[in-house]
């Protein structure tokens, strides 16, 4: 295939090895991302065992229906992303562009919804550490819940922003026809990253909103 040479770097013997290397590299990178969040998950579980009562109370003050909507939004966006890769693989470029664009829009919608939530919490005084002044919940440990909440969702939102940036780049590249059924690894890797961002949210959502 002529366009495989365009993508292959000189130090790989063939494109197959290169794709293998790129995938392995991406999975390792995703591993480091998981470990980055792992530190926060450890912190969360540790403080939850110290203040089970306060954490349970505090989590009831989060907007659960809104959080559910966000979860729904993100999971659907993952489906759209998977479809985008599928369409490129089967050579339907326009559909693929549309699916990736939909993913981006849903990512932006998630960010929008979350900023509405942040605004609400800011107004109520449900803030981390020294800024905490939420009158309904004077329990020890409640401010820690919101510290962990803001750290975890904040770091996650940064990842969503990064993901939206990456997907926008990939969307433009797809539109310009850079990927074909023979080679679409960057799009696939971008998709992997987006799924990871979703996965992390799927863990955050029950920990912060439900239990």
């Amino acid at each position, binding site marked *: 295939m002529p366009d495989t040479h365009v993508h292959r*770097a*000189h*130090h*790989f*013997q063939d494109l197959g*090895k290169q794709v*293998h*290397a790129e995938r*392995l*590299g991406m999975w*390792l*990178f995703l*591993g*480091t*991302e998981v*470990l*980055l*969040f*792992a*530190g*926060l998950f*450890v*912190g969360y579980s*540790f*403080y939850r065992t*110290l*203040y089970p009562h306060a954490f349970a109370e505090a989590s009831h003050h989060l907007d659960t229906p809104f959080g559910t909507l966000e979860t729904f939004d993100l999971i659907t966006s993952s489906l759209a992303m998977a479809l985008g890769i599928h369409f490129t693989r089967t050579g339907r470029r326009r559909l693929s562009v549309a699916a990736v664009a939909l993913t981006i829009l849903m990512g932006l919608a998630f960010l929008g919804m979350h900023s509405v939530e942040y605004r609400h919490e800011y107004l109520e005084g449900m803030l*981390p*550490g*020294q800024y905490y002044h939420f009158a309904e919940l004077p329990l*020890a*440990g409640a*401010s*820690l819940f919101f*510290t*962990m909440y803001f*750290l975890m969702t904040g770091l996650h939102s940064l990842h969503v922003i990064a993901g939206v940036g990456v997907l926008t780049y990939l969307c433009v590249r797809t539109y310009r026809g850079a990927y074909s059924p023979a080679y679409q690894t960057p799009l696939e890797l971008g998709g992997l990253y987006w799924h990871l961002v979703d996965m992390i949210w799927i863990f955050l959502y029950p920990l912060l909103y439900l239990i």
Partner: protein
Amino acid sequence: MSQSAVVSRRAGKNYLNVETSVKSWLLTRDHKRIGLMFLVLNVGALFVGGVFALLLRFEHLSPGPTIMDAITYNRLFTLHGVVMVWLFMIPAIPSAFGNFLVPLMIGAEDVAFPRLNLASVYLYVAGALIALWGMFHGGADTGWTFYTPYSSMTPTKVVPILIGVFIIGFSTIVTGINFIVTIHTLRAKGLTWMRMPLFVWAIYGTSIIQVLATPVLGLVLLLIALEHSLGLGIFDAARGGDPVLFQHLFWFYSHPAVYIMVLPAMGVVSEVIACFARKNPFGYKAIAYSSLGIAFVGFFTWGHHMFVSGQSTFDAGAFAVLSMLVGVFTAIKVFNWVATLYKGSIQFRTPFAYICGFLYFIVFGGMTGVAVATVSLDVHWHDTYFVVAHFHFIMVGATLMAFLAALHYWFPKMFGKMYNEGWGLVSAVLIILGFNATFIPQFWLGNFGMPRRYYNYPERFQWLHVASTAGSTLLFFGFMIILIYLFIALRFGRRAEWNPWGSRGFEWRTATPPPTHNFDQAPVFTHGPHEYHEPHEVDLA
């Protein structure tokens, strides 16, 4: 030898002179040039950290103020730690020698992601510059461990240094991912896992630790930076937080980080000892697997830094027994190295002198290591000079010896020049003696009860401090001699032969110095790298 990947020995163009513009260096994607840039940066960091150390030693010539005040002292020992740990020890062997050698050793043209590799240089430089900026605008006085609550409330500028180290962490992660992927996907035809050079095994183990542990460090440094600048109260006892949680997260990275430093050193030793004993490493598999064993167990021993921090007795016992296992893995390696010498043909050259130093430091440093892992003894030793001397022996002494051995062993490969053997031996002796003279008194100081990070100390400790300072001066002279004769070698040195040590390592198969694309034809491996028992063919070409 049927290794097919040999180029003509007198190839005119090599990776050094194929292009010479500054731009060709700054934008290079050649793993050899990147390795060389890391080498220069690391030596620079070693020099800066060494000067800090020397100043600290001079301050200790007398109790109380000698040449600086308490705040300066506190900043200096922090910077000494930060520079030596993150700018020298962690990247020293993997980033400099690993980058240069791993593709050569596995018969690849380059690492898997050359552009990311270049990015890791710039991340390192950016992190170092930010940290340096912080040092000159207030510095930090927390110690390189950044223990909170002190690091959350210190008036000094701790944030830029945290950010700097965070960015250097990225550089480490990128290097680690690159090596793992390279070793998995770019091994040349015929190079099975059990034929890989032991150095590559060690780098593989190191990279796994780098990839798994560094993100946690990155996170915890960010948390401390947020805590310091915004007061989020994550570790603040007054808001219900727990400062000990920070220590757990910090040591979860920083204990494996010790193995990031020492595993590559062990890899270097396996290579060099095999070459100068002209013998296959005794127990190749044991050495290779114990690297992975150390990488694995190293993740479960972090609590031995916290025996007196108030963790439960059960935790202390569990961490103590796991720490002992690391000692066992290290012991296996030491026995195998010594046994490699048996019935060998030993040639005593400068790199081998450093290997002797390495064996000495790893045996004594390791033995004091299992001694401090003996919980009840550690209660007395914790946070004293005994621990300082212990980790300088095992982590600095061993790594530094291996770094110098690697530098002298692969110097001809990297630059195509030879250095003066006589001066090499003189400085090796000076450095090993100086290191002992510096740190043996510190073992005694620790037994005596001298806590670390003490600006002012009770008078009874003084004469041991003076002895230690004298030793450090010797050490400094040793390093200066190396710097001078290596510089002379670069300018005026004799042209190196193609394979001056008669090594069987794959990296010597190609021209010295190697051409830009390493091998003219794709190499095919039919032998292991250390098969010195094979009939010795004179030219291998």
